[in-house]
């Protein structure tokens, strides 16, 4: 299983800080599709993805137990 974290406007749209979902063996792009189908109000445009706290690309593979986070454009500082 995989923990999938949402932040900022994504958290507001999903209504959860995180969900648990089985995405192992799939790519980041696959997971994005799964999320978009489940949460129709979510917009993943311009949203980065992190796997285990490192930025990842759409074609990176998700492994069992990996923590995924969707990272909207950051605005710290």
């Amino acid at each position, binding site marked *: 299983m995989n923990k999938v974290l949402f932040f900022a406007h994504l958290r507001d749209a999903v209504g959860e800080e995180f969900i648990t979902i089985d995405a192992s063996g799939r790519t980041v792009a696959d997971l994005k599709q799964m999320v978009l189908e489940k949460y129709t109000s979510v917009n993943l445009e311009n949203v980065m993805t992190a796997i285990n706290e490192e930025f990842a690309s759409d074609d990176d593979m998700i492994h069992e137990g990996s923590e995924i986070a969707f990272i909207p454009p950051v*605005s710290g500082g």
Partner: protein
Amino acid sequence: MNYAISKEPINVQEVIDKVVQREAGAITTFIGTVRELTHGKKTLYLIYEAYEPMAVKKLEQIGNEIKERWHGAEVAITHRVGKLDITDVAVVIAVSTPHRADAYEANRYAIERIKEIVPIWKKEHWEDGQEWIGNQLETVAYPKGKPEESDLHE
């Protein structure tokens, strides 16, 4: 630890103390504060939220990038999360170097990188509404697979 996310008000001197070194002739600090007016709109307060473990890692990465580029630099960064009022301190960056030009340049580099790669978000609260900053920038794209710098502070 030199890189931290803090739920409590940041003590600037504590961040500075982390970079004091006998080889340093210069310490620069950047203190990001909550400004009342942005593009003429009056902010009441901000909420900062972080993906905390990754944010700390990314702050540390920025520190390491600086140490590679500027010889003898020491770096400490603390970013606040939670509700911040006008003039509250959101971030403190301290950089010490043997020579002063480096201390300015390396410090500037740190804040620009924070706005690119550190997973922290702010929600602005105005009299007539609220919004997560960053998400309304429809021109933003990630051609290099990384967030582009938000120009909202500029």
